[in-house]
């Protein structure tokens, strides 16, 4: 277990307006690690994908609760968890394939691919009828002179 140095948890309804709120909050939380502009962009993009998945796919018929947990772990490691208690994903491996989507034509099927590419690691756990948990980690670069 890597020691947790700081954390924040946010719960919000699965409304599309909260996509922007969630990614901006994640970027603000990550600021304590002094990320580069590219790293901030990566974090915002990955969070937007995970939260949009929860909003679009987990709760297709009614509003539900989305949990965003942000952690700073020892070693300049940012951990982001996005959790829902929605319908779940029957086949996680298939859902992670590029271009696979069960959404409408506003979804490209590239969400998980982008999360994997923009973060260092991605874990997805899902149980049909119980919900999905996505955990992503990214080590924030340590440039000479940026930290004591």
């Amino acid at each position, binding site marked *: 277990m890597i020691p947790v140095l700081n954390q924040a948890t946010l719960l919000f309804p699965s409304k599309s307006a909260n996509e922007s709120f969630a990614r901006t909050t994640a970027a603000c939380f990550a600021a304590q690690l002094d990320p580069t502009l590219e790293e901030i962009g990566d974090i915002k993009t990955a969070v937007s994908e995970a939260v949009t998945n929860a909003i679009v796919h987990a709760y297709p018929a009614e509003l539900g609760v989305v949990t965003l947990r942000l952690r700073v772990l020892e070693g300049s490691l940012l951990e982001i968890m996005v959790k829902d208690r929605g319908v779940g994903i029957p086949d996680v491996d298939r859902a992670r394939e590029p271009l696979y989507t069960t959404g409408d034509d506003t*979804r490209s099927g590239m969400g998980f691919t982008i999360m994997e590419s923009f973060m260092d690691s991605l874990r997805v756990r899902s149980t049909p009828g119980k919900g999905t948990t996505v955990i992503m980690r990214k080590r924030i670069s340590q440039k000479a002179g940026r930290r004591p």
Partner: protein
Amino acid sequence: MAISFSNSSGVLTARFTGEIDHQVARSMMLALDGQVARDTPRRLVVDMSEVTFMDSSGIAVLLRAWRRMTAAGGGMEVLAVPPQPFKVFHTAGLDKIIPMQG
């Protein structure tokens, strides 16, 4: 997110401003569909210089416009793509399908 259009000599320019995500993707698609249907341009140019954030929803928006333009025998290009949206396009391989430059 806002879209403004200008049309000159059969070239329709769409300027995107702000953040592109799932919340605005549908309205962007409808705005692009409507303008292309009205103007029937031979070329669509998307100017992304004022885009401040984009997730994979932008892929779906541009792919739909590209399919529509190519089906009608027209062309499309995307200009002034900022680094963050460009990384999203590149990850999806969209920069190999639609001509674009940062």
